[in-house]
């Protein structure tokens, strides 16, 4: 699985996804930079990965839509090759107390964070099974491990993703395919910058590292799990959180 291995990272125009693209590119993978709305950002990342000596392609994919996923995989297969590494990173979060939480927001959270990774994995698996090699890395969250007031949808979706990871690992682990998850803690991204100062301070107090994480620190673990050396790591749900969940 040397230079021709193709990876798809969803939600890759910023944050952890962006860092994952660059980290995977540096390991020699050809990377599809999946984006839903920020085409410009995705193109920029693709250009940056290419400038680093890799090969990357910005591809539109809305993981809430089955047709969009199918279209994206088709394009990647034609232009880069079959996807052997899938990083399910696209995520959505909106805080709100359950009593007043909108159904549409609930659905969008579950569809993006849980149903999307399932659909993308299902689309990628036939090729991986045939190749007897594949890597799926799900970007869950420390929210998969501990509950949070105001985050019923988000924590439920991420805990679901962690169990999807374990069950799928059991299904396909005999075929050279590994399925793992990383659980980032408080990482400095667009997703966390909307949090109030009070919440930021609370998380900082709970994090033994005494600081927030950088996207690159999560991407390094993703790149390891996506690589050949992680061949015996399967179904693992790995906290990358500065000790927050310890």
């Amino acid at each position, binding site marked *: 699985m040397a230079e021709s291995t193709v990876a798809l990272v969803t939600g890759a125009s910023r944050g952890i996804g962006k860092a994952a693209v660059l980290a995977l590119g540096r390991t020699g993978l050809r990377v599809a930079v999946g984006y839903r709305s920020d085409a410009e950002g995705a193109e920029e990342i693709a250009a940056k990965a290419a400038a680093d000596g890799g090969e990357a392609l910005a591809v539109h994919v809305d993981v809430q839509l089955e047709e969009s996923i199918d279209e994206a995989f088709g394009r990647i297969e034609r232009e880069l090759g079959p996807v052997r590494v899938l990083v399910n990173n696209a995520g959505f979060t909106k805080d709100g107390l359950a009593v007043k939480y909108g159904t549409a927001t609930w659905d969008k959270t579950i569809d993006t964070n849980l149903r999307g990774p399932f659909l993308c994995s299902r689309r990628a698996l*036939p090729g991986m*099974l*045939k190749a007897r090699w594949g890597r799926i890395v799900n970007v869950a969250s420390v929210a998969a491990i501990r509950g949070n007031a105001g985050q019923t949808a988000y924590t439920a979706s991420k805990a679901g993703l962690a169990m999807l990871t374990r069950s799928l690992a059991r*299904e*396909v682990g*005999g*075929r050279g395919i590994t399925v793992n998850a990383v659980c980032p803690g408080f990482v400095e991204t667009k997703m966390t910058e909307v949090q109030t100062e009070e919440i930021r301070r609370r998380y900082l107090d709970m994090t033994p590292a005494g600081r927030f994480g950088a996207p690159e620190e999560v991407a390094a673990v993703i790149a390891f799990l996506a690589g050949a050396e992680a061949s015996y790591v399967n179904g693992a749900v790995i906290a990358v959180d500065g000790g927050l969940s310890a």
Partner: protein
Amino acid sequence: MDMNELQTKVCKILADNLSIPEDQVTPKARFQEDLDADSLDLVEAVLALEEEFGVTIPEEEMEGVRTVGQAIQLVADKLGVAA
């Protein structure tokens, strides 16, 4: 394509996929008991049949398939090949 031709093709694909000699893949052979195929083996075989014949076999239709003969019939129905 007639039924005989289809049967030969399906059996060959199944034998390749399950890594068993072709002469063991007879219509009467049961996937689980006779061919030692687990559920993922069967799914992989179905994926290969779908690809070869350009058909889609939904999970509900796979559920009743216990024997090679039933798999052949499933593909035959999809392709409109009569016995």
